[in-house]
């Protein structure tokens, strides 16, 4: 990488010699200090649980499971960010998971096999596509009532919470639908639902190249316009840390092996000789995490790089200004709920695939976890503020707490108390932080 210092064009460069805090220095260089803080909190949680649990938290096995458990909530939390940023709320996502999940289960178990033949390789894709369309339609329906009829989103989606839960039951008269299509099951990240060692390294490598390309292109663009560049060392640090995190995660995922009996079964099926000392087949990145990664990228792109995302934030910041600027605010609101519906469908697919079954109670209370993840991740319920990576981190923090408490044997009631306290504390700290920052 060529080392070119910032051209001394803009007068807003840091005044040399003046003492500045690290925080404001990072902020000037467009680094989200809040996010850095959250990562620190997450690591602290991990270390604390690691010690209390006697060294079982920061292990490939636990982290692998943690990542899978986080996925379905985190996928929805990215959509909830947009909904909340636009000054709305969606209380119906948990029930929508129930309805959409149930429909997808019935489709692949009862409706499609007679039409296409049991085990047809397209069943999983058609099921998923129909689920996504259904999610988008439900979202569009609720969003239209909110935007065009003017019923508050709290009420519409509170109604939706009841309605879609009812439909989840009605779809199969309350039966449990199982097992899922063999290919569909992979979406849930079961013993086969992972990328494997080589595939995981390839994904990690591509992600690293992406991170570096992003940083280099950012510099090039800023140089083209003669803007102040980040100090080169900071960009290098960002690149190195980003790549290290990605490759480290791949390494952890690859350090979790297929359980022994499954490994032996796998070896027998594929005529692999079992070496002395046991067979170690790395699982690699589970598919739900891969899906989450794809969703995170897509949603970040939509939020930061497309007009739609900017309009959502403008509406959240000042709805009147947005409409005076000629933005079609109602249509934009409907779109946010459609995006939410699509993400609900993807999350529902992951959930039923992971459970290998669909029950009418699927997704119960998910709306609260999703909203909590978004809010812990820095989304302001007043609207206008929120980030996609923040929401994913929020989901990860919550799941880490929950998994950690399970590991150290805390009972369910105490877990609920702890999560509730953490939610309120996180938002309280955030409010204080924002008030200080505003001054």
């Amino acid at each position, binding site marked *: 990488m060529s080392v070119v210092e910032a051209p001394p064009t803009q007068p807003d460069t840091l005044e040399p010699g003046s003492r500045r805090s690290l925080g404001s220095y990072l902020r000037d260089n467009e680094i989200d200090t809040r996010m850095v803080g959250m990562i620190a909190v997450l690591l602290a949680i991990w270390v604390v649980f690691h010690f209390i649990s006697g060294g079982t938290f920061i292990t490939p096995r636990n982290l692998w499971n943690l990542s899978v458990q986080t996925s379905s909530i985190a996928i929805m939390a990215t959509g909830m960010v947009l909904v909340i940023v636009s000054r709305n709320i969606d209380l119906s996502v948990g029930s929508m998971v129930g309805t959409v999940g149930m429909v997808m289960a019935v489709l692949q178990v009862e409706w499609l096999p007679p039409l296409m033949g049991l085990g047809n390789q397209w069943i999983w894709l058609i099921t998923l596509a129909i689920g996504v369309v259904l999610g988008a339609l439900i979202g569009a329906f609720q969003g239209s009532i909110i935007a065009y009829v003017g019923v508050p989103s709290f009420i519409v989606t509170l109604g939706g919470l009841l309605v879609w839960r009812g439909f989840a039951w009605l779809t199969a008269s309350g039966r449990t639908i199982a097992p899922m299509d063999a290919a569909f099951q992979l979406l849930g990240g079961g013993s086969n639902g992972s990328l494997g060692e080589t595939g995981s390294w390839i994904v990690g490598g591509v992600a690293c190249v992406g991170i570096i390309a992003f940083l280099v292109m950012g510099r090039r663009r800023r140089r083209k316009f003669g803007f102040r560049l980040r100090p080169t060392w900071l960009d290098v640090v960002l690149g190195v840390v980003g790549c290290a995190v990605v490759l480290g995660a791949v390494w952890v995922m690859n350090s979790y092996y297929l359980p022994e009996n499954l490994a032996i079964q796998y070896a027998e099926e594929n005529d692999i000789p079992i070496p002395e000392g046991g067979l170690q087949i790395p699982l690699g990145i589970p598919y739900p995490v891969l899906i989450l990664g794809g969703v995170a990228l897509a949603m970040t792109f939509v939020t930061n790089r497309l*007009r739609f995302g900017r309009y959502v934030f403008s509406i959240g910041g000042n709805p009147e200004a947005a409409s*005076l*600027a000629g933005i079609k605010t109602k249509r934009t609101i409907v779109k946010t709920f459609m995006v939410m519906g699509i993400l609900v469908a993807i999350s529902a697919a992951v959930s039923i695939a992971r459970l290998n079954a669909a029950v009418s109670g699927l997704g119960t209370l998910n709306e609260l976890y999703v909203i909590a993840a978004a809010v812990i991740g820095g989304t302001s319920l007043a609207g206008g503020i929120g980030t996609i990576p923040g929401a994913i981190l929020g989901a990860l923090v919550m799941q880490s707490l929950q998994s950690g408490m399970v590991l150290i044997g805390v009972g369910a009631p105490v877990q609920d108390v702890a999560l509730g306290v953490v939610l309120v504390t996180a938002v309280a700290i955030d409010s204080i932080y924002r008030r200080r920052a505003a001054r």
Partner: protein
Amino acid sequence: MNGSTANGTPLVEMRDMSVSFGGVHAVKDVTIDLRPGEILGLVGGNGAGKSTLIKTLAGAQRADSGEIFVDGKEVSITTPRDAKAYGIETIYQTLALADNQDAPSNMFLGRELRTRWGTLDDSAMEDATRKIMGRLNPRFQKFKEPVASLSGGQRQSVAIARAVHFNARILIMDEPTAALGPAETEQVRELMRQLKSEGIGIIMISHDIHDVFDLADRISVMLQGKLVGTVNKDDVTMDEVLAMIIIGKMPEEVTTKELEQLHG
């Protein structure tokens, strides 16, 4: 000085505009016009209908009846986008800024620059914002911070930059100096004179009669939704305009006694 503004086709003419809200006439049969390079002061007490009238021109409020002509041609303005397409830009008293977003995002709100892939071109937008701010308010440096963290004057300059950047031919300013300190007010006044000299027509709503007398070429007065009349600034006194605002009488109708009572 009225010679230069008294000829040619009006830039904008609003004829017999009426707007009512649930049977109450907010604006009734109002006709005003604006010529190139002219500042028209639009004055009146609270609830006189000034803001409602200009909102119909800005596309933020639909009129029940009336016609709008731009360059002598009748046009239909039903959305803010329509108005902008005719070169009509509005600076609202509230400034209409998305407080959570930075200056470039606000400047291009609804009219974002995009790359050839259809994605937002933030660098190009920041560049354009830096350029126009260099002209309007050279001391402005906060291009990356949410406009909520800017001072009143800085926010005002973002709102003005937004209107000016898109080659406004007709500028509507609702209370342009109400929230500003003396230095900033002078800056805005200077800018208005400059825009006027470039041939832009400005409709200025103001409570401040001194401001209006200082800047406007003509003054239109509204009272209770109706137009009292339009006068050349040079032909009237401040007291006569006050009489129009308060008792709705034109300078030729008003008596000396009534003028004296204004100060009583």
